[in-house]
């Protein structure tokens, strides 16, 4: 099962909170309210981020590591924790496996090496290691700063190792929390919208699990896992994937190395796009299926970052000709020769409950009465789990041991050199959302459009002024954007968003170096250079 192990309320009661690769103040603002409650109750907050973000301004400590050096930092922290004897020896012996191998794997990550690889002073690494290890309750939260890398899964494993080393998982106030970027990205995973899982995280390659679904549905299910999004693009490149049906995604804009993504989408024999907006991807489609807005024109459920399944409800009737996602899928099934009857969200949910043990106790009635329930919830008397993995603290241990996973630091794929000396990282701003398809339609006084954010030092170094339009060039493409200075950036680091593709197509620059385990591209680390468009203006 994959999901944040803690609930938001635990963050308020934690002693130490780590925000690693997350600018929650802007990207998860209401989660950050819970962080602030914790801070006001005396929790110590540490922000690990190449940028000194608005989240970092609330922190007791900001560790401005070099982009992509997260494993070097976490391994150096782990080694320091061991050196200082701050590991939770009894938890390690009781509930984990692979500890000795892990110790060997981090042996070379001295504080000095940590400083060399990450750019963070050794003393800061030492201090964070001690704070995290000594805390009674510690929450480790992360976002895309950890996962949008070519070694995304390794980055996550490195953080899990830290929690296992210190016993900061499976108890109230201590946990590991990926903050989700979409209102139902967690729910998508829960429902099996990942290549190797059926609903309830049940592995498709397990004959026993798969056969339960086959019996219930009366169909044969392909026994092997499918492809990740990035794998699909490779399959298109190799001519093995020729038809694509996209629901509510805008990959023509959101994919890394956009030129390649558009070329591949354009080369498909058939592209079907189901979306509520006429996105750039929809504009390329052979067939567009106008869909209702799932969150306000449909009934159903979504799952949040604290694993809480909550109801979405229909508040508006969709415009004429626009149909609910379910209606479209049912109609498609009917035309393909399989009549599923009338779409009914509650009936589908009950079918899910009959097949997914972790959802079994979540009837619509209980979801209403309890205002949402956190999974797992095994039966109708189960309240749902406030936090996961309590079994690791049981005497004797319940179930398998939690494995340490040794991981090695590997710098970003897009190397810096004299031709591409600047590290460009991408991210989001408070008032906008991803490719801007939804947010550009409301008028935000905070919105300033796309820019290439630089440190003032780099502005001086490259002789560019605030507001000056420059060409930004990577190994894959180039864009033109105005410069803006941000004192939260260090020399050598540049920042852009993906919010304004009509102005600046930032993903022309990004690299599609993909994590082999998760299929995530390295949006966070491109190598770029600045080219001045005209001679420097006087003054």
């Amino acid at each position, binding site marked *: 099962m994959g999901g944040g192990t803690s609930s938001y309320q635990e963050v308020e009661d934690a002693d130490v909170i780590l925000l690693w690769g997350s600018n929650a103040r802007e990207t998860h603002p209401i989660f950050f309210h819970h962080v602030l409650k914790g801070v006001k109750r005396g929790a110590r907050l540490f922000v690990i981020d190449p940028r000194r973000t608005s989240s970092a301004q609330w922190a007791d400590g900001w560790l401005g590591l070099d982009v992509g050096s997260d494993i070097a930092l976490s391994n150096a922290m782990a080694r320091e924790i061991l050196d200082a004897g701050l590991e939770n020896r009894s938890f390690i012996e009781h509930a984990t496996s692979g500890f000795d191998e892990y110790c060997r794997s981090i042996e070379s990550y001295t504080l000095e090496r940590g400083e060399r690889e990450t750019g963070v002073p050794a003393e800061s690494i030492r201090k964070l290691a001690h704070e995290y290890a000594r805390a009674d309750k510690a929450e480790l939260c992360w976002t895309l700063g950890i996962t949008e890398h070519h070694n995304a899964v390794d980055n996550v494993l490195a953080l899990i190792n830290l929690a296992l080393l210190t016993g900061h998982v499976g108890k109230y106030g201590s946990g590991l929390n990926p903050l989700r970027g979409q209102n139902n990205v967690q729910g998508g995973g829960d429902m099996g919208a990942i290549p190797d899982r059926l609903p309830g995280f049940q592995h498709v390659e397990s004959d026993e699990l798969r056969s339960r679904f086959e019996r219930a549905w009366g169909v044969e299910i392909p026994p092997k896992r499918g492809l990740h999004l990035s794998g699909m693009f490779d399959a298109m490149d190799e001519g093995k994937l020729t038809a694509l049906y996209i629901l509510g995604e805008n990959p023509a804009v959101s994919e890394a190395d956009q030129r390649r993504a558009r070329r591949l989408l354009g080369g498909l024999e058939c592209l079907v796009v189901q979306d509520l907006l006429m996105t750039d991807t929809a504009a390329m489609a052979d067939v567009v299926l106008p869909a209702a807005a799932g969150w306000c024109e449909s009934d159903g459920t979504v799952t949040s970052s604290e694993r809480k399944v909550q109801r979405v409800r229909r508040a508006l009737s969709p*415009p004429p000709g626009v149909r609910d996602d379910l209606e479209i899928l049912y109609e498609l099934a009917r035309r393909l020769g399989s009549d599923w009857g009338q779409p009914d969200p509650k009936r589908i949910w009950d079918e899910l409950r009959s097949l997914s043990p972790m959802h079994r106790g979540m009837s619509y009635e209980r979801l209403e009465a309890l205002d949402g329930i956190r999974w797992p919830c095994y039966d109708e008397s189960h309240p749902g789990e406030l936090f996961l993995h309590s079994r690791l603290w049981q005497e004797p241990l319940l179930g398998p041991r939690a494995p340490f996973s040794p991981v090695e630091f590997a710098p970003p794929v897009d190397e810096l050199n004299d031709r591409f000396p600047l590290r460009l990282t991408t991210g989001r701003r408070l008032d906008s959302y991803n490719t801007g398809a939804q947010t550009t339609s409301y008028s935000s006084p905070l919105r300033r459009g796309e820019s290439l954010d630089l440190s003032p030092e780099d502005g001086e170094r490259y002789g560019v002024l605030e507001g000056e339009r420059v060409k930004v060039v990577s190994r894959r493409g180039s864009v033109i954007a105005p410069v803006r200075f941000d004192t939260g950036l260090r020399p050598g680091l540049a920042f852009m968003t993906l919010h304004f593709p009509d102005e600046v197509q930032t993903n022309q620059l990004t690299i599609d170096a993909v994590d082999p385990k998760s299929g995530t591209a390295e949006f966070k680390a491109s190598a770029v250079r600045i080219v001045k468009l005209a001679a420097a203006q006087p003054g």
Partner: protein
Amino acid sequence: MEKKKPPTQDRFSFNDSAPCPTVPVPPGPIPAPPPGTPRNRVTLTVDGKTVRVPEGSTLLEACKTLGIDTPTLCYLENLNPVNVCRVCVVELEGARTLVPACSRRVEDGMAIRTDSERVRLSRRMVLEFLASSVDVSTAPELQAYLERYGGQPERYGPATAPAAAGEPETARAGVHCPTDGQTAATVAQPVKIDNDLYVRDYGKCILCYKCVQACGEEAQNTFAIAVAGRGFDSRISTEYAVPLPDSACVYCGNCIGVCPTGALMFKSEYDMREAGTWKEAEQERTDTICPYCGVGCTLTLHVQDNRIVKATSPLDQEVTRGHLCIKGRFGWQFVQGKGKKK
């Protein structure tokens, strides 16, 4: 330094080495938060009736257990009481002054009266002062209290002329013009419209401080506004009274969410009221989940004629406690036809 090769080869079969767990992990014991410290119960009398409530409760909570509806303006269950409106006062036996029910903690043996003549008079005066100096036309709760206590704000005389735009901000502490005793001093002034998301109509402000609390350390921690000035010149202000777009405001709208008088109002609501198309009685409210990030904030959509006219969040919701961010509060235009395929 170890260097991994970029994962370019054989991406087609990636993840094949991942384990395929067939054995389900057994559920552990149901996790629970650490038990809170048990609270003793305290006995007190309210209007002659005995009530037992947990130690640390407020008089307001004690009244509530008896079904007594205590008027409040500056109090809100998701904020700490600041005791400024004085409309919730009750009579405490043995105390020289009336005490605010919203913040006074219960003590064993307390005897309070919630509807004595002294309490009624005090509440009536407070409500009359407010209604004579402030436009309460969009404050239905305050109007209902006025009626309950027989307030007659008009007895203070006709209102003085409204201030010009910017004039209230020029008031200097300690400098007052004496009133003529015939007209009622007011805070009437032009509405401030300086952005497309919300308006500030300080002619409707009763200075309950709730917006300052919500903007500040009780929720948003942005501190874009505070109380400026002294006495009757007190007012809610941005730093140096700059327009919102020049202030620290991040447009979470959490100030609107707590405003009891409509002084802070969605621009969408303000425009509809101006146009005479705002029909609150016809509006339906539906709770759903915000379409943006994965925090899972409950949005209450206020819908009129199949259009969202504003968004709020329930105060008792454990994720939001009534608070939202700019996207959740205002970012729903995209379902209102614009950009939508016909």
